[in-house]
């Protein structure tokens, strides 16, 4: 038995080694080179996840971990890109590479913003004390090798320091031109005391994409995040968010996932200062053989913090929705308010929703609740709408959107919420019963 496990471990390690050696690491200044080498060493110890990993029970990591990415046909749409009506600081990445020409000048009040390539090229940089640190903190109790790998080899992304309230959102717009692109993006955001920023992400980044977002929110800081993972049918994505929250800080992240061959979104949050708030929410819709996994791990390690996880998934024609969500309340994290809901709406018998909600509590004065449901369209509601003259397809669309509404409510800013709702309305119309 021990031997078999060792063999498995070696196989996984070999796979990781096969992908990268020290020589393959991107060039950069001393500080970032050291971080990358350390990450690579850790990766060798971790190995890539295999099918037997408990944490990958519902999602097969093979196509994310394989040496070569599977080509993904480009989806041609006439759909207007998201967030276009919102005044924002726009950065464009094409197949995972920053494109200065298509981007706005990187100047904004209360914001220091550089590309990772720029920041990494410097000899010394404040990011030295943060880059990869939150990734590393998030490796316990579960390994997250894709994030470790990303830390080792990502050469693109943004490095942001927020020193006050930033007037316009920072918007990362991902474009894709190549059917074979394999992209690695690592974004780092440090919100200083009282800082306040919104980050937007949208667009098909690459045929295969691995992103890490590290967010450190200091006392009284606020970070808002709205992300749309587009309709790019054949793309595969693994994403990680790591956040650390100080006293009275706020973190809110919303992800829209539309179709896509394979999506694994992990979000790891630590509430370390009292009275902090964290929300992670998501709406995903899949019509076809698509796989959409949201995996969340929230650790309460301070007093009187609140966390919310709200996930809704609409599935049909062979789509699979996965939710793994955990709330860990450490000893002493009294007055914790932890809420978690995940719901799947199956529009046919070919689709499935798999959920694993978990609570682990070591404090006695806490209020935690979690729920998970899976079901079909409510026939009584459908009949009620139709009895008022609303045709079946339209009535069903209304019910699908109403099912998703609670997740959208978690987005604070009206214009962003409207943009997401608009996307979903059009998806629902295109994918009529």
């Amino acid at each position, binding site marked *: 038995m021990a031997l078999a496990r060792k063999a498995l471990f070696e196989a996984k390690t070999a796979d990781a080694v096969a992908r990268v050696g020290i020589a393959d690491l991107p060039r950069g200044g001393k500080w970032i080179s050291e971080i990358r080498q350390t990450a690579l060493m850790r990766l060798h110890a971790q190995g890539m996840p295999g099918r037997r990993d408990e944490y990958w029970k519902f999602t097969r990591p093979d196509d994310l971990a394989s040496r070569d990415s599977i080509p993904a046909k480009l989806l041609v749409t006439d759909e207007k890109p998201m967030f276009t009506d919102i005044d924002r600081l726009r950065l464009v990445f094409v197949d995972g590479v920053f494109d200065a020409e298509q981007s706005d000048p990187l100047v904004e009040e209360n914001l220091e913003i550089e590309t990772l390539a720029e920041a990494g090229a410097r000899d010394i940089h404040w990011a030295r004390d943060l880059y990869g640190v939150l990734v590393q903190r998030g490796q316990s109790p579960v390994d997250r090798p894709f994030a470790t790998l990303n830390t080792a080899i990502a050469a693109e992304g943004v490095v942001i320091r927020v020193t006050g309230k930033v007037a316009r959102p920072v918007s990362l717009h991902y474009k894709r031109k190549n059917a074979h692109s394999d992209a690695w993006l690592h974004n780092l955001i440090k919100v200083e005391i009282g800082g306040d920023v919104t980050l937007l992400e949208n667009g098909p980044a690459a045929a295969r994409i691995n992103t890490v977002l590290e967010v450190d929110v200091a006392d009284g800081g606020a970070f808002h995040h709205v992300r749309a993972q587009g309709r790019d049918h054949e793309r595969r994505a693994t994403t990680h968010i790591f956040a650390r929250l100080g006293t009275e800080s706020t973190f809110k992240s919303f992800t829209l996932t539309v179709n896509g061959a394979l999506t694994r979104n992990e979000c790891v949050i630590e509430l370390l200062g009292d009275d902090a708030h964290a929300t992670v929410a998501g709406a995903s819709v899949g019509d076809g053989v698509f796989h959409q996994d949201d995996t969340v791990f929230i650790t309460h390690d301070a007093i009187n913090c609140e966390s919310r996880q709200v996930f809704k998934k609409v599935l049909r024609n062979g789509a699979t929705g996965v939710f793994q969500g955990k709330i860990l309340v450490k000893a002493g994290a009294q007055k914790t308010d932890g809420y978690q809901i995940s719901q799947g709406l199956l529009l046919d018998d070919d689709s499935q929703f798999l959920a694993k909600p978990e609570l682990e509590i070591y404090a006695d004065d806490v209020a935690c609740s979690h729920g998970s449901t899976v079901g079909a369209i409510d026939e009584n*509601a459908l009949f009620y709408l139709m*009895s*008022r003259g*609303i*045709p079946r397809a339209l009535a069903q669309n209304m019910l699908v959107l*109403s099912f998703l509404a609670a997740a959208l409510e978690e987005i604070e800013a009206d214009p962003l919420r409207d943009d997401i709702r608009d996307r979903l309305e059009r998806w629902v119309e295109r994918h009529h019963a």
Partner: protein
Amino acid sequence: MLKIENLHVKLEVEDKEILKGITLTVPDGEVHAIMGPNGSGKSTMSYVLSGKNGYQVTGGSAHLDGTNLLDMDPDERAAIGLFLAFQYPVEIPGVGNMTFLRTAVNSQRKARGEKELSSGEFLKLIRAKAASLKIDAEMLKRPVNVGFSGGEKKRNEILQMAMLEPKMCILDETDSGLDVDAMKLVSEGVNALRDGKRSFLVITHYQRLLDHIKPDVVHIMADGRIIKSGGPDLALEVENNGYADLLAEVA
């Protein structure tokens, strides 16, 4: 005119016959009341007429102005003028009352080949009708029936009816759960819709509603059949004596 002939209905999933040969005609402009013991099949009849799933028609027919209702989808029945005020209105979280009503009104207009109402036109119309039923703007904004009190739900049904202006209105126990004042409001709402052409089928357990909405004919349903029909006095008789004597008569 609603014309039901010898309608037999059983449950789809089991061999349980619920309607055992209903024959009933409601001519244009008339108000008919249906009374009857719990479980006699009143709601089932209204569901079958509106096209709810789960029932199987094993015999008989139902026509509205000569159109066979039983072949149509619920939305098509609504578009040709059938309306059911539910005994238990359904809560629909996440769908705003206003959006719901506007979609309903315009779906019906579209189905009939009429021009859809603009938001302005719709707003004007709904404000006037809601005011007369004492439904405030806040209630219109809320999700359909969610968090509404029993009486508010019933008033909301009547608001929908007023907006949709159907030819044939079936009211299934719209009076239950209403306080005295709400009962008056609802009755006024119904009476305001009486125009000599529009017909009503009012299902109720109580004479009181019929004081406000004067029926032309009262039917008594028991065990899936109409066992007696008569004038408004029949309702008084039920109110005073219950169903025992009537049931004994047919036994």
